[in-house]
């Protein structure tokens, strides 16, 4: 009665193609991405790191309300976007601002939410990037719906749906995986397992051998990958996207990585973990690993390094300029988008605010 189950289980060890020292690791069934892809990934990693650094700085300067950094997770941020085609969709969480920007969204628009200006800044319909989801795992179901609609129309769309290790505990994670599997919907569920959900470690989140072991319970093929190895990520995620696009249904990928910084600037990690735990992860940094490899392969020269750094600095400059500029909030936005046509009640309420504001001006 059991359908062939073995291929649904992930490998025992996460797939790694470049080790922490930057040396290639041969891997049966998983090829090294071509140099072109790795060099693009390098540029994207440098930009993503710069994005994180600049966002952290902007928080300290009071220009952003809050920032959940993906420092150390940039390989995940970059790879999950690089494997997508133009018509594909990305469903990010609050921690995936770097991925959103890697996808081509304007960095200032990407930070609208975290700046406190509005709940979302970019246009999902033109960027194919869903609004960042805060209620955990809820967006995974939207991802299934977007993919299912595309499939009903015969479009080749694949949806990349991101979540964290903590989010896998929510009922919506379960329902999303199951719906996608039953309807063979082309979604790649990509878990960035960074070992923490705010203060709660993975061991309090699951007793499973790995999060990827959840796949078989839905009939979803699953794989584990080193989340700090952009090469392995590109290959594993790329294969998953291809399978999904080929009609093989949803795929589940767990990346093993680590949240090197605090949950957000408001968090104090000293309350729940020691520096000793963090230190080893610093030496597994995704950027050094890739640049060591590329340098060794002769794929990265000083010129390219400088060019990437310059591009990243331009990105940072764009962020600073955009976020240091004052934006005028428009009170009419409060009422304009609740419904397509404001109700008479909303028109009354808007008039009340208009009246208050006009009286303030008079004073």
């Amino acid at each position, binding site marked *: 009665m059991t359908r062939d189950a073995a291929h649904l289980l992930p490998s025992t060890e996460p797939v790694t193609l470049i080790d922490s020292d930057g040396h290639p690791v041969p891997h049966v069934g998983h090829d090294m991405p071509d140099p072109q892809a790795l060099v693009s990934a390098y540029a994207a990693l440098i930009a993503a790191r710069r994005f994180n650094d600049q966002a952290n700085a902007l928080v300290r300067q009071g220009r952003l309300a809050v920032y959940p950094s993906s420092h150390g997770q940039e390989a995940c941020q970059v790879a999950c976007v690089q494997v997508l085609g133009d018509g594909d969709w990305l469903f990010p969480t609050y921690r995936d601002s770097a991925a959103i920007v890697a996808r081509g969204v304007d960095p200032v628009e990407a930070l609208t939410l975290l700046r406190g200006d*509005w*709940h*979302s800044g970019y*246009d*999902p*319909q033109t960027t194919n990037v*869903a*609004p960042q989801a805060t*209620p955990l795992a*809820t967006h*995974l*179901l*939207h*991802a*299934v*719906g*977007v*993919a*299912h*609609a*595309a499939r*009903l*129309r015969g479009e080749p769309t694949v949806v990349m749906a991101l979540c964290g290790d903590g989010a896998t505990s929510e*009922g*919506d994670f*379960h*329902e*999303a995986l*199951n*719906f996608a599997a*039953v309807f063979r919907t082309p979604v790649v569920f990509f878990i960035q397992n960074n070992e923490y959900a705010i203060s709660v470690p993975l061991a309090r989140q699951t007793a499973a051998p790995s999060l990827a072991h959840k796949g078989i319970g839905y009939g979803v093929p699953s794989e584990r990958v080193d989340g700090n190895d952009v090469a392995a990520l590109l290959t594993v995620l790329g294969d998953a996207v291809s399978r999904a696009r080929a009609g093989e249904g949803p795929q589940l990928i767990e990346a093993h990585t680590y949240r090197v910084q605090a949950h957000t600037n408001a968090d104090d990690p000293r309350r729940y973990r020691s520096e000793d735990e963090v230190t080893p992860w610093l030496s597994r940094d995704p950027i050094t690993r890739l640049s060591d490899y590329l340098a060794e392969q002769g794929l990265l020269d000083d010129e390219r390094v400088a060019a990437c750094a310059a591009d990243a600095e331009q990105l940072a400059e764009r962020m600073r300029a955009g976020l240091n500029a004052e934006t005028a909030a428009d009170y009419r*936005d409060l009422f*304009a*988008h*609740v*419904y*397509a046509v404001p*109700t*008479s*009640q909303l028109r009354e309420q808007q008039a009340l605010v208009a009246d208050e504001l006009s009286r303030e001006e008079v004073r």
Partner: protein
Amino acid sequence: MTSVVPEKMTMANALNRALRDAMRADESVVMFGEDVGALGGVFRITDGLTAEFGEQRCFDTPLAEAGILGMAIGMAMNGMRPIVEMQFDAFAYPAFEQLISHAAKMRNRTRGRVTLPLVIRIPYAGGIGGVEHHCDSSEAYYAHTPGLHVVAPSDPADAYGLLRAAIESPDPVVFLEPKKLYFSRSEADLTLPVPPIGTAVVRRPGTDATLIAYGPAVPIALEAAEAAAQEGRSLQVVDLRSIVPFDDETVCAAVRSTGRAVVVAEAAGFASVSAEVVARVTERCFHSLHAPIRRVTGFDIPYPPPKLEHLHLPSVDRILDAVDELQWEYA
């Protein structure tokens, strides 16, 4: 094909026709939920849709309400007009987060860039002898949530017209189908336009006091008005039809015309839609009122078992008692 000659039909028939006509008219309309395919829904509202439109347009899902609504939200984000059925009122609660945090907020979140033309059909309220969890009146939860339209028909013609309008709405509509009215029959000409969502109607003229009701309470209010007429009292009956948007104009005009009002609703009264009606009508019509507006509602108790539900539901007698208390001595 809708019929041109008025026809005796049930609300269940009318809803089924509305779904069928909408699916014929627009390819992007899809219907899904639990048991809505081959079975045609436990109340048969989706009867025949899979047969006519195929598995891709009317289909059963895995048993998970958050999943159903969440997937519908995604499909609506990507060009479809999904209609979902929650099997019973209380079984919509697992979808609450999806409804409140996403369905209601997506348009606002994206300043109109992402819209969700989406209908959540909920067989709702009591009076059918159902066991626990099958008879909740949950409209207050939805009506309190900005971003949702909330609609409740009280007869077949309205059921047809409001459901067609809900499906055409660019915004999410919680469509409450009074279970106990599913199988009552009345004459309906489905080709006639019905007033749009957001419009209340005066179902019965009257001069002494106004009964304000919606959904399953409307037929009771009409019965009470009929009984009152026998006793020489003329009661006007207003059917809200749409809870959100609320038709202040029609309701307030009606109450001003009589100076007295009773709100009738099945749901528990506390912090409810009926409370809102009392509050907003009083705020607007205070000096036209001869007596405080009264409420005849379900009690502030969990919905009772079949053996006791008749004591809980608004009844003709209870409405007439409330009307009697409208301080006629001041008239």
